[in-house]
Structure formats: C-alpha cells, structure tokens
C-alpha cells in the first residue's frame, strides 16, 4: 500500500466535493487510482478525454505510482 496525494480540478473538484485528499491505496497506475476514486465519489465519471499528471509532469494513465506521489486529475479542457 502507498500513500498518494490526489488533486481534483474544475468539474472533478465540484463532482467529488473535494480539491485534495490523501489516499492509501494498492493502485499501481493513475488508471487504477481513478477507478478507486470513482467508487468513492459517485460524481466522478470515466476518464476518457481527461488528462493526468504526476508530480507536475504530464503522465500516461498506465504510468507507475510511487509512495508519496501527487496525482493530478484534469477533466477535459475547454478546447474551442
């Protein structure tokens, strides 16, 4: 189990009702972590078209997570 800091932005922050939380998790990737967060926060939907960053670097949904990482969940940006 790892301690991971999670930050939610914009629509995700409003849907979860929190901007920041620390989670103790067995998730190995942002994708697994997002799925776990979605079971906890029912407003959180699929992450398709969303972006993820780890420790202020844009990341892949299947990247590895390490103890103490900060994971940023970005809903799709406004575009046009």
């Amino acid at each position: 189990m790892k301690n991971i800091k999670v930050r939610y932005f914009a629509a995700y922050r409003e849907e979860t009702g929190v901007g920041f939380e620390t989670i103790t998790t067995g998730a190995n990737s942002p994708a697994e972590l997002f799925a776990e967060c979605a079971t906890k926060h029912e407003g959180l939907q699929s992450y398709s078209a969303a972006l993820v960053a780890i420790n202020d670097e844009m990341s892949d949904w299947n990247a590895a997570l390490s103890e103490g990482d900060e994971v940023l969940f970005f809903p799709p940006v406004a575009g046009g």
Partner: protein
Amino acid sequence: MKHFEITSQAIDPDAFRKQLLDPACGAYVQFDGWVRNHNEGQSVLRLEYEVYEPLAVKEGQSIIDEAIERFGVTNACGVHRSGLLELSDVAVVVGVSSPHRDAAFAACRYIIDETKARLPIWKKEYYENGQAEWVNCKHCGHREHG
C-alpha cells in the same frame, strides 16, 4: 521576455504587442480570444477560468518553443487569463512576429490551437438563466454539472 504567462489581471493587448516589435520582422499576427456573449444557444453573462498554473506555464512554453522551431518565426508569446471575466474581456492573446507573413499566420494558429487543446485550463460559463456549466464537459460523459 517571458514567452508564456498566466495572469489574474486584465490583459493589455497593446503592451503585449509592443514586446514583440522587431525591426527584422515585416509581419506580425495576433490572436485575441474575447469573452463572447453566447455559446451553444445560451446567453453568457460572464465566465471563470480555473488554471493549474505550474503546468499551464510549462506546457504553454513548450508550445511556443515548438512553434518557433517548426515555423521558423522570430518571436512568439502568449498570455492567458485566470479568474472571473466579464463580456468582451480579453481571455487569451497570442502574438507572433516574423520576417514574412506565411510563417507568422501558421505559427499563431498553431499556438492558439495547441493552447486550447493542451493547457490545464477550464472554463465555467455563467448563463442568463442562472445556471453555470464547465464547458465541454457535455462531450466527455459527465452527467453532473455545477
């Protein structure tokens, strides 16, 4: 010169333009994004940009660097607002100076397109009917809106 900035203050497009003046350049192309009074059939009263600044600045700078390298322009800059904006406020400005106009047009277009697609910036629109919505959430499977 900072090439890409996020600011919570009103953008002055003329001061922005002046920092790109260069006697080696015959062409300057500027794009302004203005707060528009309508979107998808709704009357918009004002809007709010939420920006994750550390990554927005880093990614904005990457886009500027890409444009300079790809199109061979001389100078390029961008600035994007955060916070609450009123109608006709300037939300974003991109400027490119270059010896010739072909490259300046292409680079300016590239920067604004990439900026809108890649920067962690979210727009919430406040409507005349009292509702507010994170724009484009409707296209990504979210049913709930603030």
